[in-house]
């Protein structure tokens, strides 16, 4: 059985300088209570790993606006002028990663693989500085795992052992990141008794979840 953790206690776990994975795609399926509280707490020098920086105020936007992020690993910042400005001014060091490669690098870390081989990025700027592996005459780019100190996961429902269920396009990176964070904090829309989420519907087994955020109100 998991104990629900308060927002304050959850945020207190995350120190300045931590690496933090944040689920969501253009803000959909993003753990917004955790993000807002983390930004409001004034954390600094975070390494943020997230699919995209959404628009200011949405998804991980408050962490960008709040100047909390020193390093950003992401696939897209095009809808967030603050992220672009902070990148161009050098305030944030940004590593742009193709989206399919980003999710597989995170997955690799979570499932105990030493990297992934992909043809995405070959012959482009993404290839610079990376190892190319030849297999049966085909060239593949070696992409290394990405892990994080924390993964902040938004789920539709969570039961008392931490099993998570997701919904529609709010899955995105959440179930993958839930495997790759050393400490995983789930922010479910609802907390339900055991048995309410059928075993077949569990995408993230509770053993992966360290903390469950208290219900919102």
């Amino acid at each position: 059985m998991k104990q629900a953790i308060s927002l304050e206690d959850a945020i207190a776990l995350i120190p300045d300088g931590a690496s933090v994975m944040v689920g969501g795609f253009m803000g959909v399926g993003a753990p917004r209570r955790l993000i807002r509280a983390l930004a409001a707490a004034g954390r600094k020098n975070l390494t943020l790993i997230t699919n995209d920086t959404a628009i200011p105020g949405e998804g991980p936007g408050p962490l960008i606006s709040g100047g909390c992020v020193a390093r950003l690993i992401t696939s897209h910042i095009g809808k967030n002028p603050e992220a672009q400005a902070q990148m161009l001014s050098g305030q944030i060091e940004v590593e742009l990663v193709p989206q399919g490669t980003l999710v597989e690098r995170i997955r690799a870390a979570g499932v105990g693989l030493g990297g992934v081989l992909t043809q995405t990025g070959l012959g482009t700027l993404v290839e610079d500085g990376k190892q190319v592996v030849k297999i049966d005459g085909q060239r593949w780019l070696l992409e290394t795992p990405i892990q994080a100190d924390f993964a902040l996961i938004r789920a539709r429902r969570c039961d008392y052992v931490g099993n998570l269920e997701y919904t529609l396009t709010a899955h995105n990176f959440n179930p993958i990141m839930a495997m790759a964070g050393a400490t995983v904090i789930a922010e479910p829309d609802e907390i339900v008794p055991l048995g309410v989420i059928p075993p077949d519907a569990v995408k993230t087994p509770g053993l992966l979840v360290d903390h469950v955020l208290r219900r919102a109100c």
Partner: protein
Amino acid sequence: MDAKELIARRVAQEIPAGAIVNLGIGLPSMVANYLPVDLGVFFQAENGVIGLGARPPEGMEDINLTDAGGGFVSAVPGAAAIDSAMSFGLIRGRHLDITVLGGMQVDARGRLANWMVPGQMVAGMGGAMDLVVGAKQVIVAMAHANKGVSKIVPDCTLPITAPRRVSLIVTELAVIRPEDDGLHLIETAPGVTVDDVRAATEADLIVTGDVPEMRM
């Protein structure tokens, strides 16, 4: 008919019944408006849905169901919701029939650049690199020129999205098919001559015989 509608209508003609199609945000997303509903096409959006449907009525949207641009959508009967690893597994793994993407430049080798302008516009590639590498067909739907400057160039000056040769380029002036020997002009827009297209195109175009007009 404005330029965007013309491009979207012409691209729609390339999509066969039953295809699995990913439409980029902006102009490419308009293609869905010009397909017969009974064509059985499933639209995949890389944020995790196969079977995108129309935007629901105002006030009835589901905040957990959007397209890759974050716009509200619905899902058609038979739709599937998937995570990002499955979504990009489908894309890289050659399970997607067609992707339609916008472009900043396409060059004589058919290489697309659509993700950054160094020092100015650094959007990030999002899913574009995976889509160009993995989709069975890549169609570029874009304006022929940007502020009077041809976007179809001898050699991309912007960082390319992938070295792969795209399948087709559709603009408001022409349909162009990149092949081994260069860019073939295969159709012109209504009222546009071959000379008009050549004058508006920085790259060389190969013209074989009479070039038909797009049938709209």
